[in-house]
């Protein structure tokens, strides 16, 4: 910026009116598209699907880029969750020997922490995705669905090894669970977890793109979410004291995702139909609502000024 420049305001106010009329030019726009015109809602999703290869490719680049200077590189994606699980095992299993009245407390805790960390990571990191990726995409234009999806795919891919570490911990750490066929239900639970995180990050992505300050509140909201999801202890303990909070727990999809995972991996029981319904409702509602808001607001999030 040149400091000696006369302010840009000078003359702009009256500038419009006094402008001389130029030549009249006939322009044939047949075969041209109006730029920035909103396509159909289904087209919006199709564009996101079309970008799937790009999202995967981009995610791989970002993950390996992040590991770039570490000597162990991508191995950290496995070491990280192992260290985290080992720490909880040592503290709660060996030193404190607490169970809080929960059968296989270490397994309970690992499922809670590993899975919540992943959902938390996806939502937290994609909150600012629209702004952070305002100029992303190698010279091609992507809609906000892709910009948020990109971050989702990346965090999810980086977190994928933690599922395997989780299963390993459940099988190997005492008491050493034996998985039945029911454990296969963990796969749709993972899918639901990913879809739910995407849906919520769409809604949040829009809100943060509008009011940047909200991203500071996201962290606090996530902590409240953590405690109402029963990550460290059974939520029943809270509800015994404050039964009024029951609706917040009953309709908290993350609570059910953890509950369902524990049912199939630790206790070999069938997850409740109510749990599935709550998760499905949240997932579908947030995906539809989020993408609809983004679709309506596309082109109004601002652009890269540089």
């Amino acid at each position, binding site marked *: *910026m*040149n400091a*000696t*420049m*006369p302010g*840009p*305001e*000078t*003359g*702009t106010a009256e*500038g*419009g009116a006094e*402008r*001389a009329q*130029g*030549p*009249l*030019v*006939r*322009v*044939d*726009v*047949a*075969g*041209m*598209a*109006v*730029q*920035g015109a909103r396509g159909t809602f289904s087209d919006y999703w199709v564009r996101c699907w079309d*970008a799937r*290869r*790009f999202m995967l*490719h*981009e995610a791989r*680049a970002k993950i*390996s*880029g992040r590991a*770039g200077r570490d000597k162990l590189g991508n191995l950290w994606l496995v070491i990280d969750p192992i260290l985290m699980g080992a720490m909880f095992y040592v503290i709660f299993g060996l030193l404190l020997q607490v169970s809080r009245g929960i059968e296989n407390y270490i397994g309970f805790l690992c499922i809670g922490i590993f899975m919540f960390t992943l959902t938390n990571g996806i939502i937290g990191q994609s909150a600012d995705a629209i*702004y952070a990726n*305002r*100029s*992303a*995409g*190698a*010279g*091609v*234009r*992507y809609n906000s669905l892709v910009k948020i999806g990109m971050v989702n795919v990346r965090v999810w891919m980086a977190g994928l090894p933690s599922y395997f570490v989780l299963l390993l911990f459940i099988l190997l750490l005492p008491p050493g669970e034996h998985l039945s066929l029911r454990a296969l239900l963990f796969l749709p639970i993972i899918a639901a977890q990913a879809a739910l995180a995407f849906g919520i990050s769409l809604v949040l992505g829009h809100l943060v*793109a*509008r*009011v*940047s300050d909200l991203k500071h509140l996201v962290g606090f909201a996530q902590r409240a979410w953590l405690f109402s999801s029963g990550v460290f202890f059974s939520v029943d303990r809270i509800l015994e004291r404050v039964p009024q909070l029951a609706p917040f727990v009953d309709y908290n999809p993350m609570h059910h995702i953890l509950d369902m995972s524990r049912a199939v991996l630790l206790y070999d029981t069938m997850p409740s139909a109510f749990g599935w319904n709550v998760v499905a409702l949240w997932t579908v509602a947030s995906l539809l609502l989020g993408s609809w808001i983004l679709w309506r607001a596309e*082109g*109004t*999030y*601002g*652009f*890269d*000024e*540089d």
Partner: protein
Amino acid sequence: MTKTDSTISAPVLVFDRVSVAPADPRKLGSKRTWALEDATFVVAPGEAVGLLGERGAGKSALINAALGEARASTGTVYVRSQPALIAKATAFLPAETIRFNIVRLLQGAGLGGASLRTAIDRVSRQVGAADSLDREARDCDPVLVNRIRLASVLRTRPALIVVDDPRFRLDQLKVGTHSMVAEYLDGGGSLIVASDDLKPIRRTCQRLLWLDAGRLVADGPLRVVARNADLLADALRDGDARKAAQLRRRFASAYKPPRLLINEPGRRKA
């Protein structure tokens, strides 16, 4: 029948009285109402247009409106097809291989599978990059990297390429003795080169759009507009604010933006 001075058929980009709101709606109390105000111009096929303006003059707003990243608050932007962008933001990732970066760029344009492999092959043969494909971009000659970037963008067959990176010197990018960009322009492709000084523009463009404080103040042959831009730059360098303001008024009053009579599909008379 309205009398018109000229007709432009099959343009690649049309700005019809386009105004764009400031870049970041999250920042409150911006200094200007519009980042770009009431811009009208047309880019014809095969045309190379320079876009001159200092930081904050509205180049980004114009470019982003052309790319569809910013919605025109008033007026209309028409595009032949989605323009390709060459800018700092679309640079090759330095820590990734050349091949990875080409794939990234072409996948973005929707290529995949066999057509993607063919395209990589063509790019590497065209610019002689076969040895560099599996080297990291940061280890390669920057001019070679730029040649590969341009060749990859050209494979997506864009009707318009927007270059918004002063270090991306189009005139230096040659295959043998052929200028890559000259070949593209001869084939009917169009180009917009944005910069805050004339260096990257002068050798590639014949026409110059000049933006000042969010408004177009000139649109004409490069040598004419460039001379005026130099005059103003001199006045500003000397700190002569009065002369600068005088020149600005003179140029603004001399500029007569075209009025467009748009033949919209369906509304056209036989």
